């Protein structure tokens, strides 16, 4: 995997060793992933105690900067920080100066003036976390940037699969649906490659990105052999009107919807949420014992605790993200 490089390194003053961020799965090594999953496991056992709060990040400030709506990601980052005793501040674009036209750069610099240890950012545009990393001194965690990356989602999914199967290597996951608009799919594919999970992409032709180096098919029958069927949400908010990626949601559901009839007994199903029941996932599947959706949410909390802990204290997470490189 090629790591993301920042060209504008000339604009950053030289100085102490680079801050550690989590901007993209492409910046992680297999060791990084294993360490993060291990840390998450440690935190999970701590959460079984009666008093769930750990003093680990006492006195640290974590700012959540959310430019897109989110339930599970923003709540789990906030809770993760609180479980680790950090101070948290959540800024949502609605009702903030963003409504008055403030640029991302200015908002980031304003929040940066409070000297946060971590800025967690979700933004509809690719590369927004890189920009925040460039203009502030905080450790930056990408909580989703456009259709690009959602690294903590990929990590929590690996964690969920590992809990379920007690291994990762050699498993086969079919990712079904709107791959084109999915940052989850992009991050997951890179994560799967790191840990040796085979990945097949299944979906309508126009929603499978052209030029992607991956196993791809339009045949829903391809999910049959998978250990896990990972269902993506149809992202209608990212589809421009009249684009006709599929003729209708009804036809999509009929052709690619994940139904009990299309699954083997005991085949595990995952979904990053929020679900469109009756479109990409049949409600009977969503509510079955083989759906790991709630486990994913629980994994999200401990993975985000592990990520916050790791960028502030641990080994090299995504340092290479900021390695300077010349264009071309």
């Amino acid at each position, binding site marked *: 995997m090629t790591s993301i490089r920042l060209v504008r390194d000339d604009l950053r003053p030289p100085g102490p060793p680079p801050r550690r961020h989590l901007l993209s799965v492409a910046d992680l090594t297999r060791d990084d992933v294993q360490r993060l999953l291990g840390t998450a496991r440690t935190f999970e056992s701590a959460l079984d105690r009666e008093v769930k709060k750990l003093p680990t990040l006492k006195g640290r400030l974590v700012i959540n900067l959310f430019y897109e709506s989110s339930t599970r990601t923003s709540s789990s980052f906030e809770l993760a920080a609180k479980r680790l005793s950090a101070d948290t501040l959540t800024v949502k674009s609605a009702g903030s100066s963003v409504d008055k036209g403030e640029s991302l750069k200015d908002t980031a610099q304003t929040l940066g003036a409070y000297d946060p240890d971590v800025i967690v950012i979700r933004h509809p545009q690719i590369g927004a976390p890189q920009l925040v990393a460039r203009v502030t001194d905080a450790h930056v965690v990408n909580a989703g940037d456009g259709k690009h990356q959602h690294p903590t989602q990929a990590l929590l999914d690996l964690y969920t699969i590992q809990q379920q199967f007690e291994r990762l290597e050699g498993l086969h996951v079919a990712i079904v649906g709107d791959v084109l608009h999915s940052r989850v799919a992009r991050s997951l594919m890179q994560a799967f490659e790191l840990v040796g999970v085979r990945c097949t992409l299944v979906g309508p032709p126009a929603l499978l990105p052209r030029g992607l180096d991956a196993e791809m098919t339009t045949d829903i029958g391809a999910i049959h052999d998978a250990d896990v069927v990972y269902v993506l949400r149809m992202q209608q908010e990212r589809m421009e009107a009249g684009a006709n990626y599929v003729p209708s949601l009804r036809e999509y559901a009929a052709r690619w919807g994940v139904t009990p009839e299309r699954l083997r007994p005991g085949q595990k199903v995952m979904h990053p949420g929020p679900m469109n029941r009756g479109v990409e996932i049949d409600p009977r599947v969503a509510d079955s014992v083989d759906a790991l959706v709630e486990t994913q949410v629980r994994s999200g909390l401990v993975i985000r605790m592990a990520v916050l802990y790791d960028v502030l204290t641990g080994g090299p997470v995504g340092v290479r993200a900021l390695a300077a490189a010349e*264009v071309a």
Partner: protein
Amino acid sequence: MGVYAKKQPPANLVIRGARVVDPMEGIDAVVDVRIDAGTIALMGLDLDTNEHRVVDATGLVLAPAFVDPHVHLRTPGREDEETIASGTQAAAAGGFCAILAMPNTDPVVDSAATLGALLETAGREAEIPVGFLASITRGQRGDELTEMAELADAGAVAFSDDGVPVASAGMMRRALQYAAVTGRKLALHCEERTLSHDGHVHEGAVAAELGFAGYPSVAESVMVERDLALAEYEGQPIHLLHLSSAESVAALRRARDAGVAASGEVTPHHLVLTDDAVRSLDPNVKMNPPLRAETDRLALLDALRDGTIDAIATDHAPHALHEKDVPFEAAPFGVTGLETAFAVLHTRLVQPGLLPLETLLERMSAGPARIFGIDRPRVTPGATANLVLLDLAREWDVDPQSFKSRSRNSWLLGARLTGSVAMTIANGSVAFEQ
């Protein structure tokens, strides 16, 4: 025709010891050149200096100065980004003796009044001659032709809706028919918007991996094919702006072989970069058309070598700092290029042996001049001095502070380049000196 600049004192100079290279005149030799009152008077050895200033150009190359057929001067409307004065200073620093400005300003150059005001400003401010294109359709909206005959009489060099395509084939046909009475060419931005729609990056492996909406090559090439077919049918010449894809180049080559009077241009960034550069997420590698695959880049380079592509054009597109200091998708398309064009092509193409120096000099000067009927800059006695003195060995770092342009959205910030412009003489006057 139709190029305007402020009055400058004519040069009286003897340029001594330079290697004079003018591929069109078939000259490549060390000779002295004497310029009397802006005209090349004598070429030879041991020239009488005529009491002129003597420039020691030993080790330098003296060549016909460059012509840029595609520049955005942002005037009127966005003078914070570029003015006629700053843009022509930048051009002079890049070795250009003439540039052509695109009409996608605010307001669009679609009336003789707007054009007249520009010509008047150029007559006061332009450091080097600048020609102006007028738009094909009013407001570049694609639904009504401009008064092309009047615009041509008022000084329009050619017509273009650059920045947007002429979407309707019927409108393009009418434009071709009517342009014939003006004797001016149409310069076409080829983009099928229903295919490129919200694309920011070439549709390929990089866009797929990073999640950018794709802008496929075919969005350009289907429009190139359409316009070539219409040009052939109407028997009218066309010029294809900023070609980016192998398919477009193949279509142009086929059409030219079939006798269609079509020309094409390519930018330095499309000759040097591929979509791989977008991995940096740097808004300064965002342009329209987008950077494409390595196969496209190689096809463009081949076409430049064999003459299918006649001209190098910078598509110099200045943008304010705050407009580019945003995430990639929020940034406008376009990069600057006047001050780095020769140096980067010399460094990345000529030095590694991928492009002969003579070819580069021709495609940056005689090629674009020929397309638009401008007198080609030449190194020969009797010609007006339009000359560039090049130091091919000098290494320099691209420093945004040193730009004459008002904007800094260059994809080469901080790059080390080899080869620089030591002096530019435009229309008989010294326009730039290092």
